[in-house]
């Protein structure tokens, strides 16, 4: 059935019925072209959107201690709240279901010296999870790890600009810097998309900092991340429970608004995330819509084509064509056309996106792209449906009795 003779017969019908071939091919090509272009532009829109809003991890909460504004349980008003290491442990113990990671922050400013160069920087005592919450990117060396925290090592991870300031063109890795009279070994250099300020920072294990500072267990802030699958509602609930828990623990009046502050990035991220989600939804919707339109288009054309060929099919059957040979003839033809047209559409679409490139950056379309998997899947879907769209009427046509097909109108 797939002999070269067979193909010759098919090429002939394709060649001699140019309009029909063009119509069905054009539908597929156009459908794919629109699908790929729209999806690509949508992705571009999302790209620039993410670039604007998504510097830090979005499932993060910051907890700051404050001063009480109400007397409570015999305590005076205006009491300063101090977080300690056991706050970390208690949160971890009580909220395992919500918590993804947690890290303290102890902010300090100080003079940092290497050889003759010295400058003032802020340095922060943290635990390893802080890397995730700040989306810190390591350029060389490594970030702090759990062992550093446990052993209170005198290791420091420094920002790109710290290295540039103090070490000029040399590498800081393995060198020792003096931070407020204590020598730390540089184990890593990082960059951060948050801007110059964040790249002029130094991270050290918070336990080391506590040890040096008279062996306290005070901490300034707590940063934590909840599990993203909680969603917005879950995050809100967690925030509520956590606030209540901390107020109880530190004996702050339940309606005291200034004892502890919990800032949830989801609060201001929620709108953005919703917008981004809506964007994804619209793009998906439009994409599926285009595909469906393409499938409907090709189906209609196939029905029309086969209606037009009813008589021809009747003649062929009278001359000895079996139903099987009729079906394979029509299918081979439609698959061949959709395959070629599909490839053209695929490459045309990708080409259009390449041409657009960054030309539309002013319209918030950044680096429009479509991942090849999606594009190929769409192509295959269209080809498959094109074939199916041919198969159904072809099967019906093959079953028509030849006299019915041949009857004069």
């Amino acid at each position: 059935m797939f002999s070269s003779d067979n193909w010759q017969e098919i090429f002939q019908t394709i060649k001699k019925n140019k309009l029909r071939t063009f119509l069905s091919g054009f539908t597929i090509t156009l459908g794919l072209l629109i699908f790929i272009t729209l999806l690509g532009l949508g992705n571009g829109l999302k790209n620039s959107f993410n670039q604007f809003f998504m510097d830090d991890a979005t499932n993060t909460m910051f907890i700051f201690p404050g001063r009480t504004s109400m007397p409570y349980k015999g305590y005076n008003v205006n009491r300063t709240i101090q977080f300690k290491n056991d706050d970390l442990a208690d949160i971890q113990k009580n909220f395992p279901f919500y918590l993804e990671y947690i890290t303290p922050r102890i902010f300090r400013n100080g003079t940092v010296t290497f050889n003759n160069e010295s400058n003032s920087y802020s340095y922060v005592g943290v635990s390893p999870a802080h890397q995730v919450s700040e989306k810190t990117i390591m350029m060389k060396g490594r970030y702090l790890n759990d062992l550093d925290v446990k052993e209170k090592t005198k290791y420091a991870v420094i920002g790109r600009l710290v290295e540039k300031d103090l070490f000029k063109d040399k590498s800081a890795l393995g060198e020792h810097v003096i931070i407020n009279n204590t020598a730390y070994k540089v184990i890593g250099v990082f960059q951060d998309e948050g801007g110059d300020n964040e790249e002029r920072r130094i991270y050290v294990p918070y336990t080391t900092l506590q040890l040096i500072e008279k062996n306290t267990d005070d901490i300034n802030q707590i940063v934590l991340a909840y599990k993203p699958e909680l969603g917005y509602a879950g995050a809100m609930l967690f925030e509520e429970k956590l606030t209540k828990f901390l107020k109880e623990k530190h004996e702050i009046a339940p309606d005291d608004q200034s004892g502890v502050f919990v800032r949830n990035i989801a609060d201001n991220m929620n709108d953005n995330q919703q917008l981004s989600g809506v964007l994804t939804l619209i793009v998906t919707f439009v994409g599926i819509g285009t595909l469906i339109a393409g499938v409907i288009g090709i189906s209609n054309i196939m029905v029309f084509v086969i209606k037009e060929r009813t008589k021809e099919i009747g003649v062929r059957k009278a001359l000895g064509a079996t139903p099987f040979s009729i079906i394979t003839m029509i299918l081979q033809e439609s698959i061949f056309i959709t395959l070629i047209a599909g490839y053209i559409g695929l490459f045309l679409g990708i080409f259009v996106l390449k041409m657009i490139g960054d030309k539309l950056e002013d319209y918030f379309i950044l680096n429009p792209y479509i991942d090849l998997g999606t594009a190929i899947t769409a192509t295959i879907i269209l080809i498959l449906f094109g074939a199916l769209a041919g198969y159904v009427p072809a099967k019906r046509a093959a079953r028509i009795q030849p006299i019915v097909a041949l009857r004069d109108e």
Partner: protein
Amino acid sequence: MIAIKDLHKSYKMGSNVLHVLKGINFNVEEGEMVAIMGSSGSGKSTLLNIVGMLDLLDTGSYTLDGVPIVNLNETKAAKYRNKFLGFIFQSFNLINYKTALENVALPLYYQRVPKKERDEKALQYLTKVGLANWATHLPSELSGGQKQRVAIARALAAQPKVLLADEPTGALDSTTSYEVMQLLQEINDEGKTLLVVTHEEDIAKMCKRIVQLKDGVIIEDKKVNQIRASEYV
């Protein structure tokens, strides 16, 4: 060659049933040229279509060249049609985007004859019907008589045992009709069996036997002295 016994055929039209053929008994020997006559609606085409396996009988039996035609599925019918039968229609039924040669070669394609041999044979039959010079023309470039000759060449190409012609001259003027009949007579002279449905007396008389159908039964079946079409041309 053809043996039909007690054939009945009816069509369902909504709730009522149209009994078209009501017990046909009919035999055709090899080399015969039979005209089937009758008024419009008497069942001529229906009978021919059943003989041609384009349509199915309800009851009765039909044997073609010793092969009982029963349990016909579409695929089997297609094979028999290709092997045993050639069709000539009133409206020619050529495929409009194929040239005369390609139209004639089509039944050979379904016999899986290789392309080169197919074209040679097709040209041979086109020559036989006097249209060798028109081989590369499309049907739209041919006159009615020429189209019917291409159709006859196509019917012959598969070398069938029986040629079935339903009003082969119905769409042609009388001169052209006689030319076509002359061609059919020559084919019959070579021994091919022919069934010709017509309602024209003069065309029927150019066959060797006339069968009269009326209301679904054969009312007359007689041998006649064949009038040669060449006398009119």
